């Protein structure tokens, strides 16, 4: 057992921290989120050059052979920096699916493109009426010789407007929420029959409602096996939760340390707010929530790395706990900043919104608590 970072991991963390220090402050981020794409292609190139986009992938696939721990390090720092580049949909969602289930051709073409920064990708999994159930798939894929025809609407597809490729869960057989009969396809984002309705998300990122109308793809576009999409979704969801948890841990750290700093300089009733016992204890509780959330994120990430039997249960517990602590830390950071916590000027509001959205993705607290105790 060794809970310290390796030298390589420390270097990775340092490099992200340096990048954020040099490139990200809240006004810089506000500029990025106001652009069309909502992020910087230049930054994305740097991500590729720094090797971050290659980090979690196997060396034989052109990656750096890192583990979920490396992704945790990246995401925790991205969380602190409120990074807006599409690392999560591209590397964590699409990347995990392709590296674990993709064919040799898919890896050679798309994973390689993700790694060198030339391909931005995303995963279209959510649908109306699903409410956190990834197996609720009404989008259909009808077989026709060597081809499949996809039709349906996917919701809140992250960075779809910037994506070159898109993974799509569709139903090749079974009833609308059956575990069996789901198939994941790798689709060209510009394919005929795909239309989008793009919008910003409340945390400053980008997403789209994506409608597929008779989109024709070859059988070679299947990621994994026909009908076994459930396994792909579950695997991707687990990696997604670990990544979002790490991002949340980073955001919570900034929320409680920013709150400490603010209350030290904000004077009311002739005393800095930091001298009021109720606020001191509140910040202590925020610190404790962060510590516990960080502990469970580390544990779950290491279990996933190790392939432990306990992984699935721990990930349910994690998403529950992250949601609970994020809400407590986020709400109290706003509360203790008073009116200032409500403004878009400080980072506080942005962390707060980001955490609210993280709770809504890949199953919220209730969803995972219910599964954890099942």
């Amino acid at each position, binding site marked *: 057992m060794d809970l310290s970072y390796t030298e390589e991991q420390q270097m990775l963390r340092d490099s992200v921290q340096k990048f954020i220090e040099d490139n990200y402050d809240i006004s810089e981020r506000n500029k990025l989120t106001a652009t069309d794409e909502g992020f910087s292609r230049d930054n994305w190139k740097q991500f590729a050059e720094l090797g971050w986009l290659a980090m979690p992938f196997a060396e034989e696939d052109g990656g750096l052979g890192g583990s979920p721990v490396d992704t945790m390090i990246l995401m925790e720092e991205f969380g602190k920096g409120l990074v807006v580049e599409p690392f999560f949909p591209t590397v964590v969602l699409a990347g995990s699916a392709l590296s674990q289930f993709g064919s040799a051709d898919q890896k050679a073409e798309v994973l390689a493109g993700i790694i060198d920064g030339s391909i931005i990708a995303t995963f279209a999994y959510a649908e109306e009426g699903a*409410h956190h159930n990834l197996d609720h798939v009404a989008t259909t894929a009808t077989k026709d010789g060597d081809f499949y025809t996809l039709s349906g609407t996917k919701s809140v597809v992250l960075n779809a407007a910037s994506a070159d490729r898109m993974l799509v869960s569709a139903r090749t057989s079974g009833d609308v929420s059956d575990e069996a009969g789901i198939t994941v396809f790798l689709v060209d984002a510009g394919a005929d029959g795909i239309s989008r309705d793009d919008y910003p998300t409340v945390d400053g990122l980008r997403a789209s409602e994506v409608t597929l109308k008779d989109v024709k793809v070859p059988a070679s576009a299947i990621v994994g096996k026909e009908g076994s999409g459930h396994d792909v979704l579950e695997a991707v969801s687990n990696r997604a939760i670990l990544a979002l948890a790490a991002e949340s841990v980073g955001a919570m750290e900034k929320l409680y340390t920013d709150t400490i700093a603010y209350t030290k300089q904000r004077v009311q009733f002739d005393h800095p707010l930091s001298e009021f016992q109720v*606020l001191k204890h509140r910040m202590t509780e925020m610190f404790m929530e962060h510590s516990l959330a960080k502990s469970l994120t580390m544990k779950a990430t290491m279990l996933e790395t190790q392939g432990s039997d306990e992984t699935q249960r721990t990930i349910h517990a994690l998403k529950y706990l992250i949601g609970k602590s994020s809400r407590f830390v986020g709400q109290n950071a706003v*509360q203790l900043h008073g009116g200032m916590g409500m403004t*878009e000027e400080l980072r506080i509001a942005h962390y707060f919104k980001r955490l609210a959205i993280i709770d809504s993705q890949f199953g919220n607290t209730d969803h995972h*608590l219910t599964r954890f105790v099942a």
Partner: protein
Amino acid sequence: MDIEFSEEDLAFQQEVRSFIEENLPKGMDLWTKRGDWFKALREKGGWDVPKWPPEFGGPGFTPTQRYIFDMEMARHSTPPQLPFGVTMLAPILMAYGSKEQQDRFLPGIRDGSVNWCQGYSEPGAGSDLANLKTKAELTEDGKHYIVNGQKIWTTLAHIAHWIFCLTRTSSAGAKQEGITFLLFPMDSPGVEVRPIITLGGSHTVNEVYLTDVKVPVENRVGEEGKGWTYAKGLLAHERTGLAGIQNSVLALEKAKENAASIKVGDGTLLDVPAFRNKLGALEAELLALEFTELRTLASVAAGGSPGPESSILKLKGTEIQQRIQELNLEAAGVYAAVWGNKAAGPKFAKGAMSAYLGGRATTIYGGASEVQKDVISKNVLGLG
């Protein structure tokens, strides 16, 4: 002890219901014909200003009648008035203003032709409001005050015609002393409004910069240096209004409907025990809080003070509002993220996030919850 309304009260309730039925514009008319509604309320006998005393044109409701009136208005989602003039400034003018001031300002407040904003908070005076620094100096001829300083979190300052403003005319003595209550137009030279964009990108509050703003002495309400006393009474008013308990009763019903519209497995979100039990816990507290408001009212109706229970209304009321907002956000699922002009997913989803974000203010403005607890522990429980 009897929970039932008297026959008179039941008759009054029926009267209010019939009035709403007959006069409230339906559908889109609600937006275009608001004026007709307020006119009808007024002609009914001062129902447009239900809290004003009869001598100022109010209806002279008993406390029970006012409770019934508020409840029915909330239940039928009638359009609200902006509170700054009617609810917050008017009582001050009635109590402390001169006859001239009452005659000059109350009509415009009542008919909505003059929008007001409240110039209280300052960058260094939030929860600690008495710490304000905006200076008002009397000119040598004694005819004007010259006001300099900065206000912040000024709600709707960008659409207000006038402001009621706390200013410091003396810094001798305790900081609660030497504060003076002034009224002036927002288009006075030297008034500059800068927007503050809050959580979720909305523009409701502002910074207001005041540079050598000239205010005639006849625009001072009451005595110089007594402004704090006047404002404190008004703050109490504001706090009661913020509890919004009847609105929460409605909002909770709506939250149930929202959850019932979200399919989960073979049922709906309303059947998921984790969600359902949270909702139940909330409803039980809301039932208790609703009756606490009735107890307060009964206490006043019996000719007494509102009683110690009244102090918890704002504190618990705003907490419950926020918890209802959380439930809606959870029901919105992934669609909580959708922003801008777009809507996706269930209809209520988009409003859910705005309400959640904006709702964080309710435990901050009008006396932060922590300050409310300081006040209750001191004034109600006698803790030093």
